[in-house]
């Protein structure tokens, strides 16, 4: 393969056939001289440009990527570029969390008649890329391990839910049971410090239902499997947002799901609990008090205060009570609605771009591609048909290299744009503790910034921001190429 002319950098362009490509033709016809770096891929519409193409190019060695299409309102397909604008803007705000300079990616609207503008766009973008030089690669980064600061203050008091109306709830469930296929909840797992899902079909099953800080997993993940069968689900506040999101996306039907809710007082970060418990053979006792639990394992007492050992997401949680439920019992604590940056994201915010790159290098190395993150995600409904293991489309190879592993995380994150409720199951499920939730949190933050503080999973009737558009976007401003 011809190598790049030594003066050139690798710049990939995705141009819509009708406007930008035509603009580039017009520039050519006008003999409007341009740098030679850019290679143009012709697509029917800027709406066809999956942000993942851009990421793929950047991960695979592009130094810059330029997407160009019709001016808003001029789309050959009426609205393709409106969708593109939202998706590409989200991408632009996502790149930095990976450690990729967002200046390496740009989108511009150029009409078929704007040869001069095209010349200008190409020239200034190429200049910009040259000023930044060749893009750094994840392969070359020196792994960096850093741990987020978990000394956090919660927006509400965290506790162990011992006063929750569990018995009352059990009765309600028992009453409803005859009309339901099953009710999903939690029960004690292989020991008192681990809960496992419970599928209640009989009143005896209902008696096994547990409620408390060990109920970490999100039962909403199972709901799409029961599509068409009337199913009950017991939810924490965060779980209910996943249910709402599933409803919003028509993945389950409202009439098929009965939601039971108790106020959540936070759940434990089992990873940190396990680490402190260390090696033990059996648990002798789990004692609850208002602020935490004391676990006696092999005769030794370990104290876990909820405020110190809650899951990262619980500290910033503003929905302790289900946002949507058929049965609500108990009163949640009042939430002090202060916006807070989740711990891992805050850690990344404090890093330079190069450090972030090194960080992901250091973290993703140990990824096993077991896809527990994906399968634990309630919004990952492709499951068996995930593009990660597909040859058509063939987005990824089976190589165990950093680019493939990280690319999968970006696929997941971008597919969750405007959909991720931040339940954190991806990160919790990861056997090797990669803080991948931060990537989803950055997407959610970008979506909130761009679309009027939109948060997924609060309103089943809301239009997901990336499945809609505004002709005039309030928070997306065209870049000035003058």
């Amino acid at each position: 393969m011809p190598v790049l002319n030594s003066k050139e950098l690798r710049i990939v362009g995705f141009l819509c056939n009708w406007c930008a490509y035509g603009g580039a033709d017009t520039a050519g016809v006008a003999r409007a001289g341009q740098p030679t770096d850019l290679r143009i891929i012709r697509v029917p519409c800027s709406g066809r440009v999956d942000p993942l193409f851009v990421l793929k190019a950047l991960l695979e060695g592009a130094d810059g990527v330029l997407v160009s299409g019709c001016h808003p309102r001029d789309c050959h397909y009426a609205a393709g570029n409106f969708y593109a604008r939202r998706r590409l803007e989200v991408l632009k705000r996502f790149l930095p969390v990976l450690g990729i300079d967002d200046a390496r990616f740009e989108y511009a609207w150029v009409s078929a008649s704007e040869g001069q503008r095209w010349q200008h766009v190409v020239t200034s973008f190429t200049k910009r890329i040259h000023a930044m030089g060749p893009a750094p690669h994840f392969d070359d980064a020196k792994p960096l391990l850093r741990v987020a600061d978990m000394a956090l203050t919660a927006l509400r008091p965290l506790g162990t839910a011992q006063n929750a109306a569990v018995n009352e709830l059990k009765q309600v469930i028992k009453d409803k049971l005859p009309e339901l296929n099953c009710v999903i909840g939690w029960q004690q797992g292989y020991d008192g410090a681990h809960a496992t899902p419970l599928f209640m079909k009989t009143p005896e099953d209902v008696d096994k239902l547990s409620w408390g800080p060990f109920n970490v997993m999100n039962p909403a993940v199972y709901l799409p499997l029961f599509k068409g069968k009337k199913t009950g689900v017991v939810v924490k506040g965060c779980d209910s947002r996943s249910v709402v999101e599933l409803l919003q996306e028509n993945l389950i039907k409202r009439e098929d799901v009965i939601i039971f809710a108790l106020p959540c007082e936070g759940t434990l970060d089992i990873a940190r609990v396990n680490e402190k418990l260390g090696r033990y053979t059996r648990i002798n006792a789990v004692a609850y008090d208002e602020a935490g639990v004391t676990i006696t394992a092999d005769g030794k007492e370990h104290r876990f205060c909820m405020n110190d050992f809650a899951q990262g997401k619980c500290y910033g949680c503003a929905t302790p009570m289900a946002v949507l439920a058929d049965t609500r019992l108990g009163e949640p604590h009042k939430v002090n609605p202060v916006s807070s940056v989740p711990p891992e994201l805050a850690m990344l915010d404090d890093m330079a771009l190069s450090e972030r790159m090194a960080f992901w290098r250091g973290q993703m190395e140990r990824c096993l591609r077991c896809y527990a993150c994906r399968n634990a995600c309630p919004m990952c409904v492709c499951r068996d048909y995930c593009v990660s293991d597909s040859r058509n489309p063939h987005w990824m190879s089976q190589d165990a290299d950093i680019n493939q592993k990280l690319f999968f995380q970006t696929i997941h994150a971008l597919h969750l744009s405007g959909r991720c409720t931040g339940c954190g199951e991806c990160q919790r499920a990861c056997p090797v503790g990669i803080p991948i939730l931060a990537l989803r949190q950055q997407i959610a933050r970008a979506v909130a910034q761009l679309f009027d503080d939109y948060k997924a999973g609060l309103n089943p009737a809301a239009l997901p921001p990336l499945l809609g558009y505004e002709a005039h976007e309030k928070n997306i401003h065209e870049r000035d190429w003058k």
Partner: protein
Amino acid sequence: MRIGIFICHCGSNIAGTVDCARVAEISTGFPDVVYATDPVYTCAEPGQAAIEAAIHDHRLDGVVVASCSPRMHEPTFRRTVERAGLNRYLFEMANIREHVSWIGKDRDANTNKAAELVKMAVAKLRNNRPLLAKSFEVNKKVLIVGGGVAGIQAALDCADGGVPVILLERESTIGGKMAKLDKTFPTVDCSACILGPKMVDVAQHPNITLYAYSELEDISGYIGNFTVKIRKRATYVNWEKCTGCGACSEKCPSKKTPDTFNELTGVTTAINIPFPQAIPKKAVISAEHCRQLTKGKCGVCAKICPTGAVVYDMQDDVVTEEVGCIIAATGYDLMDWTVYREYGGGQYPDVITSLQYERLLSTSGPTGGHIRRPSDGLEPKHIVFIQCVGSRDKSVGRPYCSGFCCMYTAKQAVLTKDHLPFSQSYVFYMDIRAPGKLYDEFTRRAVEEYGVEYIRGRVSAVYPDGEGAYVVMGVDTLLGRSVEIKADIVVLAVGIEASRGAAALAEKLRISYDNYGFFMESHVKLKPVETNTAGVFLAGVCQGAKDIPASVAQGSATAAKVLALFARDRLENDPQTAQVDTRRCVGCGKCIRCCPFGALKETTIRGEIKADVIETVCQGCGLCTTTCPQGAVQLSHATDNQILAEVNALCRC
């Protein structure tokens, strides 16, 4: 695959700065390439013959031509490979002229870039699949939205061509803006006299179904097979029975109803027929002003109506029609001129729009064709016309020229002199745009024969002088001096914008519109009446400012498009449509939500919900492919794998 590569010299256009032979040589190293050459003119007849020969001689099943832009010659070469027996989609182009040779002088860099573009094309081609068009039946019936002069012309031409027409009009009468005009330029013939007969033809033509006082509710389907829902708004009069005698209007006690037909220059009755020549000549009750409907007591019209046509409890009715194509002819409205505080628009009674002035000139208008000031009913002596009020004005977001104001201002000035021989008209103008046949002559006549004072310059302020007249302060830029005129009436040539509701209609029709609401044609020069949505055509001012002759011409042009389309019994689709891999599809419906054309729908396959592409509706934008997380919807000819192949060809090196 067995791929052949043709690196075109395009004379010296490409070969001047690209080493074409070298590119061909490099190409031989690409996978599946079995043949590469560098003809001097590939698109010329011998060049095309060489491609056909190479397909036969080298048993090629894929061809890459590296030459000019595919926007130029892709159709040409597709036909070439098709002649040689290949499917037209087993062909790719690399643009090494507009994107390489013409924009850079560095021969080495260009050669290298050209080779990479060929490599990308090969990579894509290796993922191409033969695609075949599908054919479908055409419903030979047309819907025309808007009964102004453009819509009327289109309707009559289509109907004369034997096509059944559904003509939709929002107001209670067709005729549009032209019906409000007194005379037309440059011949100064009577608007009603030339439009009237056409309106009557519409009413009488057996092929035309007229829905007046109706609006388009919803559209689904695609070229050849649209389903439209039409909302017939409640008129409170049974038009089957109404004879248009006008007895109701005479007796209606609610006589202060704003007269919209007269541009609010006068009042009418709550039940009325807008003007004597209205088509259909049927009465309509204005619900906000009718005493029976607002207060529940009156009922005079029902009593007086000889045919008992009045129905106070009438409801809107929605009817469904099936058509094969649609013509949008929705015209225009005036921009909000009251933003011009300095002219006192909407503030002083005698500062009026030219359309209002037109009604004052018209015999069917509120003054019976006598020019009288709205404020005191006196005849004006000094009339000031101000052009470009809301045209060519970026500061109010109206940068475009409204096209016909120069001409009608001249016409109105001329008519003013005819009506009031002792009057003096002044026209403030920036430029006179009179490019039509006999137009410039007409404006000259206004000056030379009618003594209209044309002042090259603008007006800075209009305000009452406290003595019943208005001070018009302006400038004559030719003199370089400010001028002041005492005017009795000031007529603003208010700029136009797309008809209200145009944007909403565009969204229903799935066509593009510009920032001012004007619909976008498919190509400015070569497809002026087509849109990018197959089967939707544009006539008249809805596409951009134009005068009556141009609107009529466009009306006829769309009729020609409709007749040409309906000359065929079946249509073929472009096979570059989305395809659903039903096994991968999880039925989440995201693609359905964002398809700009409604080309995806839900279907049930073995009890599971899946997406399904209506291939004839799909326009091939690929938004669904981008939206589908599992890649279950793939746009043929721009699949993920095809684009990824191009990305990989570039980046993995």
